[in-house]
């Protein structure tokens, strides 16, 4: 139930993010969510997009260091405490979360999250047991 995330290595210099986005625009890839982790010298841009394979190919062709990473995209109720319940289940199984960021808040009262865990398969089964809905690449593309 993993979804593909596009990760891009970018140096911290002016206009670099803009150049990544221009490549994606040119390729006709829509960005559904992104997270930018930074250090003093470089950053890691992580993207959930409409077509990850196309995005990865376009970025590589554009001279960027890009790679596809498996992540879990979880849809949960947009209400107080739902995230805590979810993470509590993950923590009980001693699964370490590498990083996490928000995706979208949908009209029908649902919110989605991107989760990268140390053991993705185990995390996926734990999350499923809690009743959380995991989105596939197709689901994401349809968003």
């Amino acid at each position, binding site marked *: 139930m993993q979804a593909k*995330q596009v*990760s891009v*290595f*970018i*140096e911290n210099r002016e206009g*670099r993010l803009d150049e990544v986005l221009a490549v994606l625009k040119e390729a006709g890839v829509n960005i559904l969510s992104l997270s930018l*982790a930074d*250090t003093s*010298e*470089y950053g*890691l841009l*992580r993207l959930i997009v409409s077509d990850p394979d196309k995005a990865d190919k376009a970025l590589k062709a554009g*001279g*960027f*260091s890009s*790679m596809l*990473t498996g992540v879990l995209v979880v849809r949960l109720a947009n209400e107080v405490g739902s995230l805590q319940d979810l993470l509590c289940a993950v923590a009980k199984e001693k699964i370490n979360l*590498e*990083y996490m960021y928000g995706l979208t808040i949908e009209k029908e009262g649902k919110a989605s999250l991107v989760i*990268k865990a140390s053991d993705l398969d185990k995390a996926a089964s734990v999350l499923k047991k809690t009743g959380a809905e995991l989105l596939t690449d197709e689901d994401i593309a349809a968003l």
Partner: protein
Amino acid sequence: MMWNEKMETMSREEMRALQSERLVKTVKRVYENVPAYRAKMDAIGLKPEDIKGIDDLSKLPFTTKADLRDNYPFGLFAVPQDEIVRVHASSGTTGKPTVVGYTEGDIKVWRECVARCMTMAGITKKDIVQVAYGYGLFTGGLGAHYGAEHIGATTVPMSTGNTQKLVTLMKDFGATAIACTPSYLLHIAEVLKEQGDLDKIKLRAAVCGAEPWTEEMRRQIETTLGISAHDIYGLSEVMGPGVACDCSYHKGLHVCEDHFIPEIISPTTLQPLKEGETGELVFTTITKEGLPLIRYRTRDLTSISYEKCECGRTTCRISRFKGRSDDMLIIRGVNVFPSQVEEALLRIDGVSPHYLIVVDRVNNLDTMEIMVEVDEKFFSDEIKGLEALSVKIGRAVQQMIGLNAKIKLVEPRTIERSMGKSVRVIDKRKLV
């Protein structure tokens, strides 16, 4: 003031006669004892008896760092290993270091040469000398140490790495002389100044070497510290520090010519150049027992003057170095070849990435930054993965060259490609 007036002031004719006599013996000895030299001479049909004196020097084949590597570790030694009492090592162009060996006699010659150099700097047995070169495989520390002790000076083996302690002991002991790299001495001066301690020291002389420096740096050192600073030259292959040093007139570095014959050759035609012409410095050792070297190409660019010096010495003088004829860098006194960095990177995953070495000098200390392109084989989706990569690269480089470099991960194709040889080094230090 001279340490060995006889050797330092003999006439040119006497010196040439002495060099000729010693050269003939050396050539005979290496031919008989070192297969690699014999093979080289045989290859050009040269017999030891063809070398009758110094005028025949240019008939002999050159020796290079590659010869030392090919005969690693002890292959060029001219005596059995049990006569070697010490070995040192310096950077090779790749992972293998250049190994040098000394007999008891060599150690005595070495300390004699360093003693001459320190005497040129005005150091006597009354001085307290702090030796702040690294002690260990590097020749700087022990070389300077033995010379200072030979003079009879009170020798303090500081080594490097703890500037605060050095400064404290400099004040507490009332140290009057120091041996270290010129950039380190500038750094020490800076620390003393910051602490308001410049008037609390008794320093009056310094012998600085192991890296190139300028007259401007000398002036800066001399005026800030109120001392007399001298340029000491040497390389481990030939011996270590003490091959040459400048006297109080600072008009070139006097070579210990009774032990080392210098020549200047054109790095392109390899033909000997005339007095005063700039080219590559070549040394032939004529008293060394452990590792005699015939026409060793130092790759250092300079010129020679045989004119008698105002100080009274007749030994020839080499001018300040004008650079190198290879790509070797000297960073904090340590010799670094870009090929070593490449080899360290190669060891990480078997594929050498594009890299660029940026050398600079910040607060008088050399800095080394290595930019490494993060392409697919190095890429990690996590910051901690990238940080671990930086640490791993840093450690590999440290193990290879013995220096800490700042590793900067950059995007692919950030480092400029050129059609021919790619630019691997940017040296921002202004030295010449």
